[in-house]
């Protein structure tokens, strides 16, 4: 979608400079400043986008055509749905219910919270999931008088692993799905099975390192067993409405290819429907307040960051850099699909553990598309898309700065007096990340490349 849609515009760069160099320079400077984290990433991306236009690499039409509105609509729609749904307390309900199901036994709770995190992350964005699960985790570990670190550590890993499983689980998947025309079921069929294997494989070392040492007194467990999860539901009507719309939206994603609609349409329609149900009996002023509040919870910084990035990437795509880069990559991998797929997965994993996976994937998508002709058309690129999705999503687990969800948990944990330090996290999480990518490599090879 990126490359093809940048259209008929022929770059007319100021001073007659070479568009290749100008767009390359804008791209490198933009990404360098984003990585430095000195200036808010949305500001940097939008300035980079402006420079691509002012310098003449793109015009406004070409820039707008580079923006993937399917990704933006899907993100914004899901953010509105989650903002409304979370008010009813269903997430606390599920967390407490799951803790009581294992009789408030510390390892059981770690296991359940990890699975709950993975499940929610598969359907909601990872940041939202950890924002909801981390406070409940802290509450329960406080009551049990056990160290919350193993729980939060595990939740970070499982939010990124769970998010890998579906189209809507993690922004890289949304972008890949949109650009490569892969639907919700494509992701479930191709990625969910290996995600389940990786989840089990990750739980084993977590049990060995932490699980077997977790103990709580009978009295402390009794306190948790006294929690009444039904009282966590603050609004039964809203609960029913939210679950109804969420189920409808997920059904819509599953049937998207039959219905011939894009995911953004489904998410936005779902968001509008939930807004309608939530506001139906309210007075006009109250409606304005509620709608304002729901839209206010959309992460506009992320949305504008995407807009800027899409334009910057459209600039380097239009100037032909990515085509040249794709040829270089293919020269290195000897035009071999298995070697290219493995390279894409491992480079994505390592890169995503250090830098934000969103700008990385935004660049990789047109790069992979440019490889299409070599491998015999878009269909042959499937293993590369799965390699990119698995590498970019799982790679986020490598370091505490590898994904936004990691930083959110770290921030919360620090405020609560349990800081998660960079190096200790790295020493445990990075090997686990490499382990998960190794499993994914084996899967990719056996299923698609052998």
């Amino acid at each position, binding site marked *: 979608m990126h490359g093809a849609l940048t259209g008929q515009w022929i770059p007319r760069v100021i001073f007659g400079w070479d568009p290749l160099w100008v767009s390359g320079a804008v791209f490198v400077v933009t990404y360098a400043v984003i990585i430095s984290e000195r200036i808010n990433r949305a500001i940097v991306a939008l300035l980079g986008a402006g420079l691509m236009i002012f310098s003449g690499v793109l015009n406004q039409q070409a820039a707008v055509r580079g923006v993937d509105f399917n990704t933006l609509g899907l993100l914004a729609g899901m953010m509105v749905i989650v903002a409304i749904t979370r008010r009813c*307390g269903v997430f*606390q309900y599920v967390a*407490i219910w799951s803790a009581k199901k294992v009789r408030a036994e510390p390892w059981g709770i770690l296991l359940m919270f990890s699975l709950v995190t993975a499940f929610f992350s598969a359907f909601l964005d990872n940041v939202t999931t950890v*924002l909801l699960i981390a*406070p*409940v*985790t*802290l*509450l329960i570990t*406080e*009551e049990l008088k056990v160290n919350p670190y193993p729980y939060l550590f595990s939740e970070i890993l499982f939010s990124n692993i769970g998010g890998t499983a579906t189209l809507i689980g993690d922004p890289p998947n949304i972008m890949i799905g949109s650009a490569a025309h892969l639907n919700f079921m494509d992701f479930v069929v191709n990625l969910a099975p290996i995600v389940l294997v990786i989840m089990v494989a990750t739980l084993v070392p977590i049990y060995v390192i932490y699980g077997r040492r977790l103990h709580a007194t009978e009295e402390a467990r009794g*306190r948790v067993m*006294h*929690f*009444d*999860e*039904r*009282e*966590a539901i*603050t609004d039964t009507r809203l609960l029913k409405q939210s679950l109804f719309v969420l189920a409808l939206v997920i059904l819509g994603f599953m049937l998207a290819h039959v219905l011939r609609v894009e995911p953004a349409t489904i998410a936005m329609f779902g968001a509008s429907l939930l807004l309608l149900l939530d506001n139906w009996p309210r007075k006009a002023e109250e409606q304005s307040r509620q709608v304002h509040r729901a839209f206010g919870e959309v992460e506009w910084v992320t949305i504008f960051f995407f807009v800027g990035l899409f334009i910057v990437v459209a600039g380097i795509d239009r100037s032909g850099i990515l085509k040249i880069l794709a040829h270089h990559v293919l020269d290195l991998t000897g035009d071999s699909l298995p070697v290219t797929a493995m390279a894409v997965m491992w480079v994505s994993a390592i890169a995503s553990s250090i830098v934000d996976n969103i700008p990385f994937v935004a660049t990789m998508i047109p790069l992979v598309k440019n490889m299409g002709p070599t491998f015999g058309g878009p269909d042959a690129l499937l293993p590369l898309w799965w390699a990119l999705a698995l590498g970019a999503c799982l790679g986020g687990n490598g370091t505490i700065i590898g994904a936004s969800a990691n930083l959110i948990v770290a*921030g*919360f944990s620090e*405020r*609560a*007096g349990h800081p998660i330090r960079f190096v200790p996290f790295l020493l445990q999480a990075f090997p686990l990340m490499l382990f998960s990518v190794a499993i994914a490599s084996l899967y990719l090879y056996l299923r698609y490349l052998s």
Partner: protein
Amino acid sequence: MSVELIMNRRPVTLQATDTVAGALELLLKHRYRSIPIVDADRKFIGLFEARHLLGLLLPKAATVPGGLTDLTYVHDSIEDLRLRLREVSGLSVRECLENHAEAAPESSSAEKADDDTVLVRPGTPLTETLLLLYRGRCSLPVVDAESGRLLGVVSYWEVFRRLAGKD
């Protein structure tokens, strides 16, 4: 008219090393909602508030920013809370303030001490003082800008007494 003219110049104070248990006794005895903490030179350190004490009794999961918004499903007994109070009663009031400051949301108005306490200067106009009290402060420490010393405290009681002509 400035706050200097109506403030209470002899407020009850706490020393930084005083314990939470001691502070609780003072709060109960005087029915105050907050007591200023000073060092040996009477330099202002912070304001120990009754809600800090409540914060110590509540799960951190609900008192840190971004934490739980309600605890409707938690059923701690009075014994559980007494036990928690016993655990924290030996903390110094300074430690208590520091714990609170780590988790405190930013406040935006007036001048601040090292936590989210709002304080005023002796020359702060009366109307501004009223506005700060109106915004939910029960009492305001009056602190000298240069020396950092506590000069007094102003609460709405001082304001009302003055208005009613009962001073």
